């Protein structure tokens, strides 16, 4: 944490320019950035963030006239009561979600490492307004249905805190022991996180193997078609990945190499990503634009070894759509 940079170094491009040709004319592209650094004052919010950081407590602003408790304490005066002063009060660390929260699978570039993640609004005990919080499950990949309107959640504190809203997140109390739910200032290190373990595949029958060979051949042919499509090639420009795909009937290697996509039967020693999918038709359908890899992951039909590789998953899905689009135009 001490060495962390406010801009991740890997996000910063090299300073250079290149030329793109459109309609026979050259156009100049410059790698560039707008950047401004801040030593930003948290001003009147400082007590709230300091309480998170130093005391693992959550504060709200209670109107001295109407008694409404706003969390986070985003005002010092109540605009509903002629701007009567508010006072800081501590609220509970258990609450309920006001609505079913969204789950993000395709994130902005700062959050691609974190997908899938949830963000919802919890009304903590003693509060009248909702606090926006990240929502995590301790039980594998986050899918819709774990969090709903009214789901009871517990605030969990990061072990290393900076005085930011990301010092906390919520998990369902249903995933915690009664002691954990009751404990003030519960920390992430006290949770029992389920490790990402590769799901086992059933042993293959002769039928599975035959079906695997058949679908593998179709996947290879489709990969050639995708690689021959200009729009689809652009989707994996400057991208290199070796993906080992394990299915019930056998294993495949899918290679992405700067515009070229190949799929072949076999194995890879040090893949960038492992996919486990019992039925290889799930992969074929997705690449043929008859289904979706993301939805297959959400429904548990497809497992991937690294969530950060959702970026690669999206690129494959985009290729499928590009080919489908090109066939229409």
């Amino acid at each position, binding site marked *: 944490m001490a060495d962390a940079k406010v801009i991740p170094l890997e996000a910063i491009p090299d300073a250079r320019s290149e030329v793109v040709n459109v309609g026979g004319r050259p156009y100049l592209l410059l*790698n560039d950035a707008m950047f401004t650094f801040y030593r930003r004052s948290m001003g009147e919010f400082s007590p709230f963030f300091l309480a998170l950081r130093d005391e693992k407590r959550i504060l709200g602003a209670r109107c001295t006239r109407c008694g409404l408790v706003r969390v986070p304490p985003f005002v010092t005066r109540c605009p509903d009561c002629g701007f009567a002063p508010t006072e800081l009060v501590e609220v509970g660390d258990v609450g309920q979600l006001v609505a079913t929260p*969204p789950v993000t699978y395709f994130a902005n*570039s*700062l959050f*691609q490492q974190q997908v899938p993640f949830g963000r*919802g609004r919890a009304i903590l005990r003693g509060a009248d307004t*909702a606090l926006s919080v990240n929502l995590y499950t301790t039980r594998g990949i986050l899918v*819709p249905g774990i969090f709903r309107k009214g789901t009871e959640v517990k605030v969990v504190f990061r072990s290393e805190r900076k005085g930011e809203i990301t010092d906390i997140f919520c998990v369902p109390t249903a995933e915690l022991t009664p002691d954990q739910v009751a404990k003030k200032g519960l920390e992430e290190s006290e949770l029992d996180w389920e490790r990402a373990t590769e799901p086992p595949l059933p042993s293959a029958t002769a039928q599975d193997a035959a079906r695997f060979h058949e679908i593998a051949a179709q996947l290879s042919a489709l990969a050639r078609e995708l690689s021959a499509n200009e729009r689809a090639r652009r989707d994996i420009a400057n991208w290199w990945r070796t993906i080992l795909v394990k299915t019930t009937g056998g294993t495949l290697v899918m290679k992405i190499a700067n515009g070229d996509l190949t799929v072949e039967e076999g194995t890879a020693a040090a893949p960038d990503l492992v996919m486990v999918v019992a039925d290889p038709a799930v992969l074929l359908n997705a690449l043929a634009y008859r289904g*979706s890899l993301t939805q297959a992951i959400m429904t548990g039909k497809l497992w991937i070894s690294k969530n950060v590789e959702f970026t690669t998953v999206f690129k494959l899905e985009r290729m499928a759509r590009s080919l489908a689009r090109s066939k229409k135009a």
Partner: protein
Amino acid sequence: MRRVGIVGAAVTPFKARWYEKTYYELAQMATAAALEDAGLGVDDVDGVVYGIYNDIFQRAAIPEHPLQAVIGLENKFGVRVSNGGATGAYAMSVAHAYLAAERFKTLLVLGVEKATDCFDFQSMSATPEVIKTIGWSGDSFFEQKLGWTASDSYAEVVLAYMDEHPGDLKPEITAQVAAQLSQQARDNEFAQRRFDQVTPEEVLNSRIVVYPFKELEICVYSEGAAAVIMAEEQTAKAIARNTGKPVIWVTGVGEANEPSFAGKNHKIMHRILSHHLAAKRAYEMAGIKNPLKEIDVIELHDAFVHQLEISMAEMGFVPLGRADSVIEEGLMMPGGPILVNPSGGLLYSGHAVGASNIMSAWSARRELIRRGLRRALVHGTGSTVAQYGVVLILEQR
């Protein structure tokens, strides 16, 4: 208060990527075409209202300042409006107020956006950086660092609505709305996805971007510009006599901005009250009692198909909880009583943010004139949790 009308309009093509142009030239293209449509020279225009949403897209704070000379309005009035997704609609609302108050006779409303110069060098693609740029619009103390995006923010509202009305916004219906918009885009020669017709099955199979939104149910970011020329009553009539094109009068304007924090006395998550209130105010001004009967064309800001459906309900075209009747009862189907996004909406025409609602006004005017219809509604939505709502009523008399 003077009556105000639209006397000229133009759009540039909306494109996913426009290497050949900067936003200076896009602004010139739209301005020149709108002036030509109105039969005016630039000297006939008293000033400009710019609709530019995002400084970071343009890579400049006050990105409008160079445009004053680029579009030939040096030494004249120029004000920029920046209201998130509702920027274009708010820009027209501002122009209306200045003209109605007789400060000016003729104003240009110019929306321009160059969204996809943003680029993420980690995924080697534009979109994650474009949505990061929009992500700077979230609350900077309590929400940005949680991964706030426009999609997850609108999804919050949609999911809260679905909690209240579990039988509405059925996936097969949202898919059908998206598919229909794709068909309608075929008629818009400027649309970004003019020849990308999709079936409801394809929409259903498209990937989840932010649950519950699928890729083909979300508008696409664009580079492009749109402009309208608005004038006060006497000037508008004189211009119309000259061009032979009818004045499209702005007979109603309404706006509302909701709170962005949720809970007691704050945002009701399952409602989009901003759209409800903006429509109510615009209807009152225009004397509309029954919108379904009295409005022929709706240009609805369809950032997300689910939100389009909820907005239709909030604006009084279908009951809350039965938004699916836009399809199930054929309201927006071919031959139905209302045309909704006849040019494909932002989903298929594209979303060049500051220009989008102005493009919608261009489309509404085009439909009123060529189909000989009476009334259109132009809608804009924006900011976190659909906080902003703007509605304009356009009429041909």
